[in-house]
């Protein structure tokens, strides 16, 4: 086994490759081949191995992330799936929250469930809220459903029974009977994929898992076989939405845990960059062509959450997608990217996104027939994107097209000249991102100011300083070569697995020390079995959290538990941790209220990639500009002549006073007037507010 490690990230348009051989790094981008994704993967692997002069046998590890599961749901190209639901409750996944997520729109539609009504089959059984069996499972009725599954050509089944998080016995029995009567049909139990209260979310998660399982199973098997055929002997790991690595076997059982792995890679990268520089509190800002993702990371660890929505149909509105409850790295994603289209609403307000011009036709300045003014067009108008230096000069941009598109979509209606309209567009998109970040932070009870921003992705470095100003952040880091950030993030991910259990505990009257320690031991054993598949001997770290709340409250806050078994002091400790966290998030404690715990989770992981601290850069020296260009000054709305630097010629220790542009092939960094940039020991651009 060698030290060569390869990451492969299949995205919607491109498949990214990152290869680490010792201290050397290689990267590649190829077009994704949606019909047979393994082909693009193989082609890219061959190219990048050639770049590094390696043979298949030289690879020690392949880490794979993919949007295939997400796309199968968005495009409704999953398996023909049935839901076996508690009799009388099959419509839960369609009724959803019984509400309209867009209040004033009488024409809105709710997301269609992944399993249509005629494939939601009713199973006589019932367990109550305490886990007691109210009505035994009718095994005969269940067996009678098998021919129905056959007639409908069902290849995957989700089992969703009420209160199965409290007692999974009926779901387990149902799975066993199905395995006996129809062994070829894939089965997902809601109590296994998401053992949590709230039937709509749990069953939706189970249906989504069942829906993508055959697709992912087939793909992963094919990929494994093909790689073996070509002489690859190394293990393959999949990256999960929680930013951990997992084995192919687990990925094939819980493919839903693979959705949104790309953004997770970005968060891991940002975290790593921060740790190299000894920063504890950061905000990672990843902006591409269609969306921007903002993630808060504290104490060297992204935050995790368990709720997520996939395939939002209604812009980025909460409730318009399918809820998935799996461990995810907590972040907010909004429709704000370089390709986001600008418009004017009937209140004469500039709107940007969420519609995107994508890569085809792309922004107007690409000259591929795009007629809508986009954020990229606005940046062209403002001089922030230099038309003859875009993509290393390989692609000539057309500023006239930008001007006429922005006039058409914004300027004419608001009676603004093209430059002011362009400035309006960038200000609005930056404000949108700042607002999303603020709402996200307040929802999680975290502060934004005093964080370090790590910016990457094609469009982030141009907007990062302005966003930082809005969020009262004084340091922004743009790492070197962040074009394939997610894939490089994969290389840094630990092998990890998360286990959650719902168990109500009132701190004052039902804290059963022995019982809870037994529960924790059981969770530890489950996670260990999974993690050890990929990390037989490595040291592991345990991260325990509990979802706690005041008794009777509806939503919990996640608190970190101390390591080690519970003892007689634990009630007092837990209460203290909860109240401290609560007060920090919401500003006041509520006197005389009991505290309760709803669920317990464990993240078991290998110790992450070792951190090499960023060496100090040589003494500061002012960098030599490559050119001077006309760029807008936002406060005055006037053009001014500012210095332009080529990033490739900036050595560590170089300093640049804003305003300035730093240009590289994949992106441009805008250093606003209030920032000074400096290249650090690892070649990152570090901008500090002066």
């Amino acid at each position, binding site marked *: 086994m060698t030290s060569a490690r390869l990451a492969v990230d299949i995205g919607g348009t491109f498949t990214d490759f990152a290869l680490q051989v010792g201290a050397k790094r290689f990267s590649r981008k190829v077009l994704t081949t949606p019909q047979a994704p393994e082909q693009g993967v193989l082609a890219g692997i061959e190219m990048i191995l050639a770049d590094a002069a390696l043979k298949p046998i030289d690879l020690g590890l392949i880490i794979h992330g993919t949007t295939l599961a997400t796309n199968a749901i968005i495009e409704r190209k999953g398996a023909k799936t049935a839901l076996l639901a508690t*009799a*009388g*409750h099959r*419509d*839960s996944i369609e*009724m959803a*929250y*019984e*509400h*309209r997520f867009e*209040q*004033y729109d*009488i024409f809105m*539609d*709710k997301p269609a469930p992944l399993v249509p*009504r*005629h494939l939601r089959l009713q199973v006589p059984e*019932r367990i*109550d*809220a305490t886990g007691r069996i*109210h009505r035994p499972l009718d095994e005969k009725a269940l067996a009678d459903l098998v021919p129905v599954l056959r007639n409908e050509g069902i290849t995957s089944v989700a089992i969703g029974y*009420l*209160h199965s998080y409290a007692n999974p016995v009926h779901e387990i029995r149902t799975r066993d009977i199905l395995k006996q009567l129809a062994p070829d049909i894939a089965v997902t139990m809601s109590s296994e994929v998401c053992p949590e*209260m*709230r*039937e709509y979310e749990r069953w939706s998660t189970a249906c989504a898992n069942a829906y993508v399982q055959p697709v992912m199973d087939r793909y992963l098997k094919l990929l494994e076989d093909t790689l073996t055929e070509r002489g690859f002997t190394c293990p393959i790991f999949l990256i999960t939405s929680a930013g951990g690595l997992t084995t192919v076997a687990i990925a094939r059982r819980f493919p839903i845990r693979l959705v949104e792995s790309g953004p997770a890679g970005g968060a891991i990268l940002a975290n790593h960059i921060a740790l190299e520089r000894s920063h504890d509190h950061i905000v990672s800002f990843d902006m591409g062509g269609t969306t921007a993702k903002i993630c808060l990371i504290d104490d060297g660890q992204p935050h995790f959450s368990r709720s997520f929505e996939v395939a939002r149909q209604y812009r980025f509105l909460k409730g318009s997608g399918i809820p998935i409850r799996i461990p995810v790295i907590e972040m907010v994603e909004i429709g704000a990217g370089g390709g986001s289209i600008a418009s004017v*609403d*009937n*209140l*004469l*307000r*500039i709107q940007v996104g969420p519609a995107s011009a994508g890569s085809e036709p792309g922004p107007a300045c690409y000259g591929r027939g795009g007629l809508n003014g986009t954020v990229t067009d606005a940046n062209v108008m403002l001089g922030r994107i230099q038309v003859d230096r875009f993509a290393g000069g390989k692609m000539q941009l057309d500023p006239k097209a930008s001007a006429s598109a922005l006039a058409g979509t914004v300027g004419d209606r*608001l009676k*603004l000249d093209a430059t*002011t309209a362009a*400035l*309006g567009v960038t*200000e*609005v998109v930056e*404000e*949108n991102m700042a*607002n999303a970040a*603020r*709402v996200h932070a*307040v*929802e999680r009870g975290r502060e934004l100011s005093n964080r370090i921003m790590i910016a990457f992705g094609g469009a982030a470095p141009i907007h990062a300083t302005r966003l930082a*100003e809005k969020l*009262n952040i004084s340091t922004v880091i743009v790492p070197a070569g962040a074009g394939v950030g997610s894939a490089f993030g994969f290389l840094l991910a630990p092998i990890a697995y998360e286990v959650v259990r719902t168990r109500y505990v009132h701190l004052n009257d039902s804290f059963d020390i022995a019982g809870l320690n037994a529960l924790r031991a059981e969770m530890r054993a489950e996670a260990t079995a999974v993690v050890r598949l990929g990390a037989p001997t490595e040291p592991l770290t345990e991260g325990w959290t509990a979802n706690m709340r*005041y008794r*009777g*409250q*509806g*939503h919990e806050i996640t608190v970190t538990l101390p390591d080690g078994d519970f003892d007689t002091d634990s009630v007092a400790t837990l209460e203290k941790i909860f109240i401290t966290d609560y007060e920090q998030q*919401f*500003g*006041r404690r*509520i006197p005389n*209220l009991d505290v309760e715990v709803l669920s317990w989770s464990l993240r078991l992981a290998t110790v992450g990639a070792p951190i090499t601290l960023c060496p100090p850069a040589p003494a500061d020296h002012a960098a030599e500009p490559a050119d001077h260009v006309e760029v807008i000054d936002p*406060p005055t*709305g006037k053009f001014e002549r500012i210095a332009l630097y080529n990033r490739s010629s900036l050595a560590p220790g170089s300093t640049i006073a804003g305003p300035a542009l730093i240009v590289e092939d994949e992106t441009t960094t805008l250093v606003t007037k209030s920032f000074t940039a400096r290249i650090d020991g690892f070649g990152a651009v570090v901008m500090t507010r002066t």
Partner: protein
Amino acid sequence: MDGTQTLNDDPMHVIHQQIMWDRLISVVEEQAQTLIRIGFSTSTREAGDVSAGVFNVAGHMLAQAITGTPGHVNSMARAVVHFLDKFPAATMKPGDVFITNDPWKGTGHLHDFTVVTPVFRDQTMVALFASTCHVIDVGGRGMGPEAREVYEEGIYVPIMRFASAEGTNDTLLEMVRNNVRESVQVIGDIYSLVGCNDVGSRQLLAMMAEFGIDTLDLLGAHILERSRAATLEAVRKLPKGTFRHAMRIDGYDKPLDLVATMTISDDGIDVDFTGTSPPSSYGINVPFCYTEAYASFGVKCIVAPKIPNNEGSLAVLRMHAPENCILNAQHPRPVATRHVTGQMLPDLMIGCLNQALDNAVPAEGTSCLWNLFAFGGTSQIDADSTEMMKARAFNVMSFHSGGTGARPGKDGLSATAFPSGVRNVPVEVTEAMSPLLLLRKEYRTDSGGAGKFRGGLGQVIEVITLDDAAFAISANYDRVLYPPRGRNGGSDGMAGRLTLLSGAVLKSKGRQTIAKHETVLIEMPGGGGLGNPLDRDPAAVAEDVHLGMVSLAAAAKDYGVVLRADNSIDIEATTAARQSRR
């Protein structure tokens, strides 16, 4: 940032105003999200039965959170003025927090608490934040229509200080704590209202510091004027005229007529409710603030759905109701279940607008919520006291909905709230909080009114208790005697029903005891259909049958669509059946 308070002829001024407006909307959304996250009662935390907004020092609403329900939002919009009447701005001090649950000055019944917090920048008041939520209990008779006067409906907190810089008003807290049934949840919710206003205030002050503004005067004027102008512009696109519409609903002891006369002119929309039935002797009366809220919501959905809600956009829609009318019930009329009447108002408004817009509007829907309010415990139930000795005390409020009316070009939504904006409570949560078990909760086949576009389906819920004792429900249901009407040739939705599985028909309004072995059957109305059912695409009918939304029999009877055993359409028979019916 420099340059924000430059002259209006600066082109960047326009953009800065917009940025600050967007920020204000974001701030109130943060306020609402905080309320939901820290709220206690199911209505706050699961259902989002809340509202949050920011007001200028004159008490005019500048922005409201998108999250929230219309009955709260548009009534809370008027509430802050009442606070300022009693506590003029000049008397408010940093640290002050005010509170009320006055149905006429808040949001329509005692169960809604509204908290108002003034915000100070350098000792000068710059804005007020208000928030509202529905608490689980206010004492009195509990949530139901039985009371004959508001005095019976629970504790009444007039507009007063909840806190000052010296601390909270402990007398008030003690009074509330000792007058309500679920005091932990109620007090917790009040603290949540205070807490979410604090979050809003903090964010507003940060925004003002960032943009370097000392007051919201210029920004507020811009928001109100721009919103007013945009709403007027939308109104002016409508045909002018006066349109009258009437709707009969069940009422409590006798049917009610809701009557509206809508005048569309160049300076807005005026609605007069003259002709509407007088107040009821029971708690289905509507304070005028709540009438205004739902009526203006209904108009806005059709006329100007995308314009943010604030004093500017609301001012263009003017409501008038005579004082002797159920839509302007006066103190001390009982008002606890005012929503059952008030939520009908969007349908009434849409009925008026239908005449102006030539059928380009939805049919009537269930409109009022069909919530499951149930409780148990020793003293609340009419049952043998030895049986009730061992009864588990509980109080659940779970929000549910029937079908909405068919829409131009689209079917109605099944089991979906309109006009209310609340979310349901998961079955598993309801069952964990009570001894109840919901045996069934599924679509009610054939309940959607037939039409070219079908009404949304209602749902059926069957409830039993696992406790060895009786329990009670408080029914607040309408559309049982008078179902949602179809439009333009569409059929009515199916009427709602409340019965015991054993056969007895229950009252659709009021508290009733359910004996321990009985099963309650709640069948919710479907929405009305739109257009002639014989014009519905036979493939759509076949799909409805396939999915079990429409029965085979109803496909033939209501739509004239004849299906074979394999669900394929018998085209000849269908054509013949449809021709014979035209």
